[in-house]
């Protein structure tokens, strides 16, 4: 008796009802979100990952607001480089959108070329970002725990936030390269390209907050 006595008949009725009413949306007769399971899964991942990035952005902003004398280490050349990185990432989102469009209209070859262009731009972004990090580490003397401005939280929060984003871009480059390779062998379909596109656009979207909040707000112009 107890919980099993109540739960088992309830679950039995639930399972039976889904089998006897397949036409209703919530009984499995349709898709409640009107998209495939793969894009829906990626949307749910995007929501959870957005929470992670939001937390890191709030941590950075908290550290910045609560510490007087927060450094402004980004001079004109750093801002120019970060702007170029933003342009590269936005352009990669554009080529990704073109790849999705090409696949939806059955142009597999063009989809592969656009995906490879996206991969190239993603690699360019990572390269520019590593160069920016090297400048900060070698020239400005910023590390995770110390910097010349005696604001140790700057390095910790900056490298964690931008490092997490760079890891996402690097993972995305690998993901898109695998999708492009599979497409060129006539594997995968338009849903798979659309799903990978959702991930890539999300990575781009996150940078649209990191660039102004981290770089422009600490610009030394």
């Amino acid at each position, binding site marked *: 008796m107890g919980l099993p006595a109540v739960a088992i008949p309830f679950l039995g009725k639930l399972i039976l009802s889904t089998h006897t009413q397949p036409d209703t949306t919530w009984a499995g007769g349709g898709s409640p979100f009107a998209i495939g399971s793969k894009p829906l899964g990626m949307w749910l991942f995007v929501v959870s990952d957005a929470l992670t990035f939001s937390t890191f952005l709030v941590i950075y902003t908290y550290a910045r607001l609560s510490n007087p004398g927060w450094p402004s280490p980004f001079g004109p050349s750093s801002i120019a480089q970060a702007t170029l990185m933003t342009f590269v990432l936005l352009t990669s989102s554009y080529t990704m959108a073109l790849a999705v469009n090409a696949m939806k209209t059955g142009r597999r070859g063009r989809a592969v070329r656009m995906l490879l262009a996206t991969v190239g731009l993603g690699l360019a972004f990572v390269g520019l970002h590593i160069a920016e990090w090297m400048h900060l580490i070698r020239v400005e003397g910023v590390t995770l725990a110390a910097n010349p401005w005696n604001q140790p939280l700057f390095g910790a929060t900056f490298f964690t936030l931008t490092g997490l984003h760079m890891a996402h871009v690097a993972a995305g480059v690998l993901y898109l390269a695998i999708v492009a390779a599979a497409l060129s062998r006539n594997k995968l379909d338009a849903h798979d390209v659309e799903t990978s596109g959702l991930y890539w656009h999300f990575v781009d*979207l996150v940078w649209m*907050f990191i660039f102004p909040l981290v770089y422009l707000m600490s610009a030394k112009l």
Partner: protein
Amino acid sequence: MLTNAAMTKIWLALLALTLLEVALAFPHLSPILFLLVLLALSFGKSILIAGWFMHLKFEVRSLLYVLLPFLIVCIGLLLAFLPDAARLKELRP
């Protein structure tokens, strides 16, 4: 499905908004005003990316509702922690 020409317009609009953000860094606005303007522009860019590049504008409304808890938590985090950060600054000797 959006046409490639429409995608090109979205891309150019995103580049233009980025240039505007960078241009606004030069007049040395007050930090709070600069932050608010940058946040507004970033939200505008996010709407363009999520709405058009990610097709959210053309999906059913229920998918949009899935994203709302994230926005509520995000705004809640900001409202909870940022006033505390400002208070901490004032408490320093």
